């Protein structure tokens, strides 16, 4: 075991050395003896508690891996992870505290898009780069109600993931009818539903029913019964936490045999695990899947399993990549370690120029709107808490 680890460590070293090369090659000054302070705001409890923990684990893993092979130009990364309890206000406050108190030069998070819309403006107004690693909702980057010059994300937006998923399935199975199920008191879910309603018709899927409910319903069967009664080819579920699994279980119990399609809400082990057999085949567009054949992905998976005894998922991969991106930017940003404000701006400029050939997500570049443009992996739940690849939609 130990040997595997060190072996993998060595490989990772090569890998990041390589990508360091491919990034817009400013000869990096030495940071010896310094500490690069990074922060992360994740939802470890509350509704987002389904997603946050994996992000946290992976981010800390990345920190260790990078430090293990000598850090960034000799500087060690110090990542502070805090919990926002899936609460908007807390996310914003935590972000501010990390920036103002702990003096971080860049942040990851927050986990939920609903919290991001509150936290990101804070980072932006304090001129500190903040990168969402799981924010897939609308108005996160690009078209935001505030400048958002300092806001990035390496997570695949629903407006890309959902259409890709629908297209893939439509091309293969030509479904005719669909029903949309979503909690209407949740912004993220409502956004997703809107995307489905806009996209499905394009691929000849008629939305025969849109069923709204609320996050905190004890029992969703009445809705599912309504959905099943319409006997659609597809049931779209755009929502968070335990809801998708609950819907799948009930729908299968009611004997419905059709196809579940969804968004990023599906893409975590916890959901697949909770859905169990009922989830088998439930399909979603993902930014990641274990089979991505890059060196850093293989290492990432190996390390993650070794450290946490569980398979990583998309959120883990995105968080891990997030730290890699920040580290890479730091290595090119000529940090002063004295003038924090200046360092934050240089971090941002360096991030704009990010060009990594080898990350767990594959080659990585930001679009002009600080968004991610990457291959989409359409995956299906394997009924055992994991996912299998259905097809890939290249950029």
């Amino acid at each position, binding site marked *: 075991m130990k040997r595997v680890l060190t072996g993998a460590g060595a490989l990772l070293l090569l890998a990041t050395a390589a990508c360091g090369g491919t990034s817009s090659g400013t000869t990096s000054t030495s940071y010896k003896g310094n500490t690069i302070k990074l922060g992360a705001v994740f939802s*470890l*409890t*509350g*509704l*987002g*508690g*389904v997603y*946050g*923990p994996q992000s946290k684990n992976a981010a800390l893993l990345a920190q260790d891996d990078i430090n293990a092979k000598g850090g960034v130009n000799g500087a060690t990364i110090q990542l502070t992870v805090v919990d926002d309890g899936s609460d908007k206000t807390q996310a914003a406050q935590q972000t501010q505290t990390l920036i103002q108190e702990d003096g971080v030069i860049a942040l990851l998070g927050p986990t939920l898009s609903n919290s991001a819309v509150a936290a990101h403006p804070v980072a932006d107004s304090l001129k500190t780069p903040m990168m969402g690693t799981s924010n897939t909702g609308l108005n996160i980057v690009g078209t935001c109600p505030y400048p958002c010059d300092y806001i990035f994300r390496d997570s695949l937006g629903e407006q890309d993931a959902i259409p890709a998923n629908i297209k893939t399935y439509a091309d293969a199975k030509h479904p005719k009818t669909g029903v949309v199920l979503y909690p*209407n008191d949740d912004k993220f879910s409502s956004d997703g539903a809107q995307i489905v309603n806009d996209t499905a018709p394009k691929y000849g899927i008629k939305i025969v029913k849109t*069923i*709204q*409910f*609320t*996050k*905190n*319903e*004890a*029992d969703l*069967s*009445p*809705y599912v*019964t*309504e959905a099943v*009664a319409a006997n659609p080819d597809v049931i779209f579920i755009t929502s968070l*936490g*335990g809801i998708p*699994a*609950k819907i799948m*279980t009930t729908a299968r*119990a*009611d*004997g419905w045999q059709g196809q579940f399609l969804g968004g990023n809400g599906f893409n975590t082990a*916890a959901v697949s*695990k*909770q859905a*169990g*057999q009922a989830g088998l085949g439930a399909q979603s567009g993902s930014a990641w899947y274990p089979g991505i054949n890059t060196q850093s992905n293989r290492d990432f998976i190996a390390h993650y399993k070794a450290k946490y005894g569980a398979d990583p998922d998309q959120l883990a991969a995105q968080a891990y990549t997030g730290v890699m991106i920040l580290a890479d930017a730091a290595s090119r940003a000529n940090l002063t370690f004295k003038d924090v404000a200046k360092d934050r701006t240089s971090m941002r400029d360096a991030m704009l120029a990010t060009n990594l050939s080898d990350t767990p997500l594959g080659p990585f570049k930001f679009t002009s709107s600080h968004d991610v443009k990457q291959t989409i992996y359409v995956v299906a739940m394997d009924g055992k808490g994991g996912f299998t690849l259905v097809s890939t939609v290249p950029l």
Partner: protein
Amino acid sequence: MGQQLLNAIFLGSIYALFAVGYTLVFGVLDVLNLAHSAVFMLGAVVAYSIVGLHGGPFWLGMLAALTVSAGMGLVIEFVALRPLRRRGAPPLSALIATIGLALIIVALIEQSHAGGWLGWLWQDGANPVRFPPGSVPNPILHVAGLIIPGDDIAIGIVTVALMLILGWIVRATSVGRALRAVAENQRASRLMGIDVDRLFALTLVGSSALAGLAGVLFGLALSDIDPYIGRDQVELRGLAIIVLGGMGSVTGAVVGGYLLAIIEVAVIVAGYTNLRAGVAFAALFLMLVLRPQGLFGSRVQERL
């Protein structure tokens, strides 16, 4: 349609199970015990830890859940309620004390991970989990074109059985008589030799055990166990139910549970799925405005 009726009955059973213990405490102690939902959750968690984490049989999990939640009842009485009663503090403070207790319970569970000091009890933090498939046989019956999962039937039966038993206890046993006596007139009860404090403790034990049981069945039937099932999914509805039924009335809680479930499902069937929750709370509001004593409650008269 028939399917939806089944759904309503099933949902109603879940509601009733939760609400009965809730209303019992209010009826006897005149305090709204907002830690009830936390105990409900804890029951499910304990059963899961026996069955899911330690591979024990389901009946054992159920037993453990009952024991632990009953114990929580004592904790609520002795930590939160009795000290305030002794101080003659207003019921409002008692209510908030129970909120504090609930916060603690939920926080401890949601922060518990493998290897943590509570790891033996719960390892999934905020993640929802389910009982391992097959931990209870769950045949799916097909009757006259209706699909009826076995556990739904089980829940229905258990609920009805429990309600009958509880009804029998309250009506026929001496404890039950004492309960109703205290609920109606503490002074007179004392004069008849009833140890009121002991009865309060007993009430909390009973109602909490019910909460725990409800939690287990909830987790089983909805394959959803997480730190928030009590707080987020049943607490508010439970409040609506005991108001509909008449605060303090056990019968009321049962009828209210099924009534609310039927109303909600009716709204869904009518196609206004987006209004379900709104209607539920509007019903609560209207009931209080039009008939504060609820369906089965009795009005209290203030005299000069």
